[in-house]
């Protein structure tokens, strides 16, 4: 009886852990993507430090990319809605 209770507690612990690791992996993947895009936008030739103009460019880049993504999602949802009402 208690053997099975222990099993499911273990499984639950692993499940929660996997969920958190999966979220972490998604965040890392997102950071990889930002790095890719914002390096191209903001870094010309690498120098001996990041000057403040470059830092501003990089943080703006991340925020604007997120804003863009949110706006596109909104707009796309609207477009899909319009499409489906026309098909009716």
């Amino acid at each position, binding site marked *: 009886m208690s053997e099975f209770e222990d099993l499911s507690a273990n499984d639950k612990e692993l499940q929660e852990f996997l969920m958190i690791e999966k979220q972490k992996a998604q965040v890392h993947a*997102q950071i990889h993507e930002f*790095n890719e895009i914002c*390096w191209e936008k903001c870094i010309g*030739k*690498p120098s001996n430090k*990041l000057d403040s103009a470059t830092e501003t460019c990089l943080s703006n880049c991340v925020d604007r990319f997120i804003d863009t993504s949110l706006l596109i999602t909104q707009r796309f949802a609207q477009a899909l809605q319009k499409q489906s009402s026309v098909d009716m």
Partner: protein
Amino acid sequence: MADVSNEEIMSQMKQQMALANAQGQLSKMTGKCFKACIAQPGTSLNASEQRCISQCVDRFMDVWDLVARTYGNRLQREEELEKPYEKTGMF
């Protein structure tokens, strides 16, 4: 019963994920820095190219930290606003 404890499984998985992340960074860094520093590939890396590459590695890590921080701050702000943000997969 199970010979391997949860702790071992979790620790191994964490290591593997950290390794995968580092490998990804390495791969990207190499691409970016080659592009930025090696204009005309010669028969060896000259001193200026080597210096550029070293700086580039450092800058890449700086950029990574800044981007990660900016993203983290944005995530926090979105949560605080409790915005009904659409599922872009980013949050």
